[in-house]
């Protein structure tokens, strides 16, 4: 399978503090890749750099063969990469519907079609379409954040900490919907600490101290000791 996302020797950080120390991996089109690691390993920094929220210090990111690491985030989203950020970050003072409409900012032609698709995945959002996003529960906000990311009809969806703060039951629901999104043709990269997502992973990545320490199939990771190492050191 051809790689949709290729990350090569990526270096980035905050201020003068380096976080990514040369991250390299690729994700094949149509797959779900899950990135595990402890807090501070560099998972969020990786996805934030891929979508242009952080500047690349070195190395490069290619999407569908095109180097995107020097582009502003607005151009990266236009090319078909979307991020569901850590902490949901919905627009609290705007309605659910307006939040979703803003998700289609770069690709307005698909707004109606994607809205129906999102409401299909998350019927609760349709019921609450007129409600202010800030008044939704944590789980509903997570659904909204994923839905908003889908509104631009991305080819690659990056989800940062999908299960953070959610109940185990709701977490499973979110994982199942993400699996469905992947089955419908969107390539997915999930940053997670919850190993409950492993059954949905085609590819698994483990990050430690700003580098990738495991890159293989999800089933391989389940059998190997790398996952234990990633969490227990």
């Amino acid at each position, binding site marked *: 399978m051809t790689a949709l996302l290729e990350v090569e020797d990526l270096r980035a950080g905050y201020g003068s503090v380096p976080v990514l120390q040369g991250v390299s991996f690729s994700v094949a089109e149509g797959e779900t890749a899950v990135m595990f690691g402890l807090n501070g390993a560099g998972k969020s920094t990786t996805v934030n750099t891929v979508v242009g929220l952080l500047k690349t210090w070195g190395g490069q990111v290619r999407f569908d063969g095109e180097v995107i690491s020097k582009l502003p985030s607005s151009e990266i989203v236009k090319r078909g990469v979307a991020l569901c950020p850590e902490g949901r970050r*919905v627009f609290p003072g705007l309605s659910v519907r307006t939040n979703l409409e803003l998700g289609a900012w770069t690709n307005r032609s698909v707004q109606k079609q994607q809205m129906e698709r999102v409401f299909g995945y998350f019927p609760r959002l349709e019921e609450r379409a007129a409600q202010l996003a800030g008044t939704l529960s944590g789980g509903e906000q997570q659904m909204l954040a994923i839905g*908003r990311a889908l509104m631009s009809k991305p080819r690659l969806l990056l989800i940062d900490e999908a299960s953070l703060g959610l109940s185990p039951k709701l977490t499973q629901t979110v994982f199942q919907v993400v699996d469905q999104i992947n089955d419908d043709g969107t390539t997915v990269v999930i940053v997670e600490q919850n190993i409950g997502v492993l059954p949905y992973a085609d590819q698994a990545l483990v990050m430690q101290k700003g580098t990738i320490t495991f890159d293989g199939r999800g089933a391989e990771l389940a059998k190997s000791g790398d996952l234990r190492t990633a969490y227990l050191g």
Partner: protein
Amino acid sequence: MHEAVLGATQFSVQINFLSPLINGIANGAAYGLLGLGLVLLYKSNRIFNFAQGEFATVGAIVTYVFYSGTGVLPKLPFFVAVPIGLLASVGIALLTERLVIRPMFNRAKVILVVGTVGVALLLIGVEGLLPYPKTQSLPTISDVLKVQPFIGRVDGIPILYQDLAKLAMLVVLAVGAFYFFRYTRTGTAILAVSQDATAARVVGISVERISLISWGIAGLLGGVAGVLLAVPPQGTVTPGAFTGTTLTVAFAAAVLGGMTSLPGAFVGGLSLGLIEAFANVDASFVPGLNHVHSGQAELAVFAVLLAVLLFRPRGLLGSET
């Protein structure tokens, strides 16, 4: 006209409520016009823009120098000079965003606010260096149209074309801005950026472009205020003309209306104009108040502002509309 009897003391008094009503609406429209720009930038950048008064002054000065043909400049018709003045206000606002706000965009908001104070002081200084007669005023609408200054009289009080123009412009701009934020993509994007700039970037909104648009609109609103307010009897094109008392009361108006509400700036401006005007009504006939001659208006504005901050800090109409 009222004949009033208070307690045991009988006295005759003539209070005309119409005059403060008309004056209050006229002044309130001025505060509302400046307040609109303040609210817009508070909504979009979450900062108080202390340079808003100078966007108004620059618009008034540039309109004046082209209208009067100061120095080597051509003498242009008023309705040609006004767009040039407005363009100057927009240009100054855009430069402020590009050179002062954007480089410090990720710094603490208080630093941006101090930056706008710096811009205001710089502009006042530059205006002082410009060679033009600084005590002059812009013509009123009636001067330009060569008609009598008032449309009619109500109970002997003249209703000025200029005051009507201010009020009409305030209504048009407040309603226009309300619809802009509620029904346009750019307006919604400005709200999104103000609520979470990172999330706005995530959906592909260019935060820099949105910031530039917000400042441009604020500059335009300031310019319109300047052109309408730099007229006789009080208004002049003096450097810093609108950064003193006018801006202070405009801030109070914006807070009273609710800093995030555009209709609130309209309501707050008119309310404060009326409070000021009625506070200035000659109350010397009231026993115990016959020594009060000045300062009532400022005191009333302060009292109202304090009450709002204490009991309703989000203002009369505070909302994201």
